[in-house]
């Protein structure tokens, strides 16, 4: 039986503790869509909104949530704004440097992505069922938005007691 790759959360948390911290006030923009910062931000405490094309697609409060990982892995600008809803603190890393040299961080990020894909897949099963059953547009629309929140935002994280974060569970 394979042993799980990640669960060494304690090791990852110790690594995070060595990173610089940055604090944002309520209303501050943490990441801007279309910008390329090369930074990886890991929420330590606070609450943020992920906003895409003016629409809030997710709210994230769980410590350990990662922001900026898609941009660095896809080598493209950030696709959403991340805005602080209250005073919020993040661990900050140079994304490329951290992912290149730190297997723990890399696996953490990969697992967060896998978790989001898995959760989106479950949502998609629900969506398919609703479309086939001819459910009303409002119901289908809400499910699509939930999947969008999982895929496009973030929030899956492995350190919070709520793991696995899964709105479709």
């Amino acid at each position, binding site marked *: *039986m*394979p*042993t*799980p*790759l*990640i669960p060494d959360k304690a090791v990852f948390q110790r690594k995070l503790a060595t990173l610089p911290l940055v604090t944002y006030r309520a209303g501050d923009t943490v990441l801007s869509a279309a910008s390329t910062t*090369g930074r990886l931000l890991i929420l330590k405490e606070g609450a943020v909104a992920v906003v895409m094309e003016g629409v809030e697609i997710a709210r994230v409060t769980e410590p350990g949530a990662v922001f900026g*990982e*898609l941009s*660095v*892995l*896809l*080598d493209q600008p950030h*696709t959403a704004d991340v805005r602080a809803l209250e005073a919020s603190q993040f661990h900050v890393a140079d994304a*490329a440097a951290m*992912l*290149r*040299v730190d*297997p723990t961080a*890399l*696996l953490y*990020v*990969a*697992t967060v*992505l*896998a*978790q*989001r*894909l*898995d959760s*989106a*897949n479950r949502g*998609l099963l629900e*969506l*398919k069922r609703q*479309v*086939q059953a*001819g459910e009303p*547009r409002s119901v*289908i*629309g809400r499910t*699509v*938005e939930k*999947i*969008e929140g999982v*895929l*496009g935002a973030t929030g899956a994280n492995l350190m919070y007691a709520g793991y696995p974060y899964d709105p479709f569970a």
Partner: protein
Amino acid sequence: MPSLIPDFATLETRLAGLPVVKHRAGEVVLTAGSKTGGLLFLRSGTVEVVKDGVQIASVNAPGSVFGEQAALLDQPHTADVRTLEQSEFYVADATAILASDPTVALYIAAILARRLDAANRWLVAVKHQVQAGEPPSVIGKAVEKVEELLSYGGRDPTGW
């Protein structure tokens, strides 16, 4: 900034020492519900990904990887992978290779990121269709596309 992400050629240099398995056409390479702990990298050939008896993708790009989500999430495989023609795979122990080889782990993280991004783009199309009041048959097709993008093995993350 040079890309962080290895392409398949770079990956292949890391896989060179791994065993290669050959499957004939029609063989099941991974079974939904099983837990193999293995990672498979397509070297040559074509496979189909089958979920609940329905083909959701057919994959022939060398470097396509199978089994990575099961390994990362410590879950059973969620789809069958079956060869459509004679196919060759590099076979790795998922835990060992992901924990010890950052190049392979980066390659896989990039594939997952690419899959999320692609599925998300199609989901926007689904959203617009729902808002426009398109019939269920049209929405259903777009939903299937999202399903394909979310689930299939994933190819060279630098290649599309």
